[in-house]
């Protein structure tokens, strides 16, 4: 129940996951320099964006001379999943003041979310901070370490190949079913086909095509035989999503 013990519990529970976090930071630091980004921009990126996969995408595209708008846009598309995390964890933070919620939002990562969402406690603030702040510290330190190390890597080592390997490592578990596979295959296929497009638009084109393919695949797999007459796009038949918590006046809604 004490703040301190919650903080420590959070830090302790997240410690094993740092093995997954630190390599990201190191990779960011090392490959950013290779791509021509300055140490300041690299560290700044880890501070401001604080999302490994999108940072690696930024670094890879920057190294290829992609148009800045496409780089920023790709980073945002890669980070769209934070919309989902935010939606999932929001109920746990409903009662806290805006200041807290802002801080919690900035610190949100897959791991902090996963640990906190199953924590049985009314006041998860300190536990969440224990997990999230530990990750943040480890990640920033790893970025700096990567920047420092990167300067010493011999040229010719294909370290930057670790970037697409990381994406591959993330892609495989992200494919959970046939529609997901369709999304990945079409996304990849369109990106390859569109590699000659100006401004590296093949990438966002692939992403959009992949999402559409996933939606189509899900529709044709599940919606074919239940006879509700709904085919194609349009999901308004489902109605509003049910709220998991009791509705009604909070009374404590902060500004």
């Amino acid at each position, binding site marked *: 129940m004490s703040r301190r013990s919650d903080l420590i519990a959070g830090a302790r529970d997240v410690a094993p996951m740092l093995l997954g976090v630190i390599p990201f930071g190191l990779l960011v630091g090392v490959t950013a320099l290779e791509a021509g980004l300055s140490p300041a*921009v690299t560290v700044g990126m880890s501070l401001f964006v604080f999302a490994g996969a999108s940072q690696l995408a930024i670094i890879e595209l*920057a190294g290829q001379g992609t148009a800045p708008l496409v780089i920023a846009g790709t980073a945002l598309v890669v980070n769209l999943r934070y919309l989902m995390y*935010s939606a999932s964890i929001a109920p746990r933070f409903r009662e806290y003041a805006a200041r807290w919620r802002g801080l919690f939002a900035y610190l949100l990562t897959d791991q902090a979310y996963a640990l906190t969402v199953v924590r049985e406690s009314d006041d998860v603030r300190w536990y969440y901070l224990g997990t999230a702040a530990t990750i943040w510290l480890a990640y920033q330190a790893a970025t700096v370490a990567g920047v420092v190390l990167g300067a010493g890597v011999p040229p010719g080592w294909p370290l930057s190949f670790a970037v697409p390997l*990381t994406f591959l490592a993330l*892609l495989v*578990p992200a494919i959970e079913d046939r529609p*997901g596979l369709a999304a990945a295959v079409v*996304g990849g296929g369109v990106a390859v086909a569109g590699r000659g497009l100006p401004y590296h638009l093949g990438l966002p084109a692939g992403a959009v095509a992949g999402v559409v393919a996933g939606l189509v695949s899900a529709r044709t797999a599940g919606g074919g035989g239940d006879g509700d007459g709904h085919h194609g796009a349009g999901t308004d038949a489902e109605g509003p*999503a049910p709220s998991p918590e009791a509705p009604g006046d909070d009374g404590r809604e902060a500004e």
Partner: protein
Amino acid sequence: MTLAPTTAWLVVLAAGLGTLAFRLSSIVAFARAGDLPAPVREVLRFVPPAVLGALVAPAFLVADGGLAVAPTNPRLIAGAAAAAVAWRTENVLATIAVGMAVLLGAGALGL
């Protein structure tokens, strides 16, 4: 042709602010309403595999601008090995390690 420093900072700022907006979105907007609307969730569900697929495919299938879906493409072989490891272990470190090892090995074999 790399990013000029000012441009790089602008990209960082744009990506940072946008990502923060995503992180804040439900915590701010849906603090009362509960989940994201179902259609939005449907679409979001496919974003990770689509985006990651689009990021991954060119790196392993394209060499010097041309399609290289052949055993002579060392990156493709390394990628296949890494994908197998990712599938069995779901371990990021192992995947990267195996992929790099296979690539370096293929290079040593003269591919």
